[in-house]
């Protein structure tokens, strides 16, 4: 790298060394986080153009930005929203449509986190331990899922089915049948998919109930004056801001 560019990068860093304090539910404290930069904002908005793959890409980009800007690698799935909302508020202002983002940040502090980080399901000889994945774990699965999704309209249903399987998959820690225990982190992703596809339907329902506890927490946080904020690529678009 040329001396001139290195010196310019130093000046840029000095000019923009501010951090914002974000409350992290899993840590129960505020952590300093770098604000969004130009490339990150563009990456978030450009994912809006690409349908089902775009949705996956948007989530992957968000996770990557949160990990990068906070410097924390073990953040849980339910830590995502506080970062999204605080980064957006810092970048584009407090209002998103009719919703005041400060109201959501207040919800994060006030609504108790009642999600179990681990849970167990039993069905005969089958025992599953469930977990709340970290953002890093979610990104590994999103990468794989994005590679497998076909964007053809004809196979869209199949794509949505795959998304569902991956959603289930990311919440399973171990599967035990009698004395045989498999830690899903120890096997390849396509083998995990095969295993999960063989689980009985009643187990799926119980995993869905577990996932629902996270979804409910997120919905409660995102609701201000009975209006729920929708988080998509448009949320980071300047033309949609106040």
């Amino acid at each position, binding site marked *: *790298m*040329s001396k*001139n*560019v290195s*010196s*310019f*990068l130093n*000046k*840029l*860093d000095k*000019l*923009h060394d501010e951090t914002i304090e974000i409350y992290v539910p899993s840590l129960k404290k505020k952590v300093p986080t770098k*604000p*969004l*930069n*130009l*490339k*990150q*904002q*563009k*990456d978030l908005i*450009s994912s809006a153009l690409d349908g089902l793959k775009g949705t996956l890409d948007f989530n992957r980009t968000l996770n990557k930005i949160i990990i990068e800007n906070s410097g924390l690698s073990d953040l849980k799935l339910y830590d995502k929203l506080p970062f999204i909302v605080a980064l957006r508020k810092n*970048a584009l202002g407090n209002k998103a449509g009719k919703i005041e983002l400060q109201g959501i940040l207040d919800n994060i502090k006030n609504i108790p986190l009642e999600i179990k980080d681990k849970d167990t399901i039993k069905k005969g000889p089958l025992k599953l331990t469930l977990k709340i994945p970290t953002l890093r774990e979610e990104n590994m699965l999103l990468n794989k899922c994005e590679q497998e999704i076909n964007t053809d309209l004809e196979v869209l249903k199949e794509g949505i089915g795959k998304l569902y399987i991956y959603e289930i998959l990311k919440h399973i820690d171990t599967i035990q049948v009698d004395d045989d225990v498999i830690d899903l982190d120890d096997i390849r992703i396509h083998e995990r998919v095969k295993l999960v596809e063989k689980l009985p339907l009643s187990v799926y329902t119980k995993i869905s109930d577990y996932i629902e506890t996270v979804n409910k927490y997120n919905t409660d946080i995102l609701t201000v004056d009975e209006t729920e904020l929708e988080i998509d690529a448009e949320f980071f678009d*300047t*033309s949609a801001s106040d």
Partner: protein
Amino acid sequence: MDLSFTLPNKKEVVVNEILYKDLRKMALYNDSSLSNTIDFLESFILTKGLTVVEKLFAFFILREKCIGDQVAIGSKKGKVNIGLHVFKKNIGTFDDIREEIDIDGIKCVLNYPSRFYVGDTDFIFSLIESLEIDNEKVTISSLSKQEYNKIISRLPDTIFGHLEAFIQKNSSHFNVLIYEGKESMEIDKIVLNMLDGSFSAFIVKLFDCIQDTDYREMLFVLSKRIPDVSFLINSTYLELNDYYKLYADEVEKQNEDLQKQNAS
């Protein structure tokens, strides 16, 4: 050999000749990505700091000097040849849209993009011509890929809104009318937008003039008359076409002489 010429906006441009052997690479690149092919073509433009419109002009001249001035375009009646001078005349002179803005202590000059869109949306930041902090200035088009990525990853997001406004304000300038179309020949109008992939795809098409089998056939035929193959591959396609015509005329004349001898 280097060629130099002056663009309609009076900018001096130096390019490297595209030789016959380079077209072989193009033929091999046929299945390659748009990004690789554009990188390869851009390596022939030696002048740094050009915008994509200036590069388009440079490619027109390069095409004219090294391959030929006729371009075949599709019509409902089949392929029609059009002279490159028509394209150049249609573009004419391009308006100056440069704009200087000050954002959070950074002086930022916006202009036409300096990078082609080839699938990576990061190219949009090449609308930034230069950045300056405390009299220290960097020109975006002169940065390596690594330097470019480092700089755009550190720029504040507040620039984004200014970029969007600049694009909106100058949207008509980013559309380039290449050909007005001809109703009698059923040829459609050709308008390229420098912010989408059609612009780079059009440039690649300009140089996609030979298949690999044709490449070998031309060499095979000409080497009977000019055995120095190294000389042939280091000539331009335009020159080889001339040699080919001369050789064809020579063979035809020899055949006629032979027929006359046989008749007498």
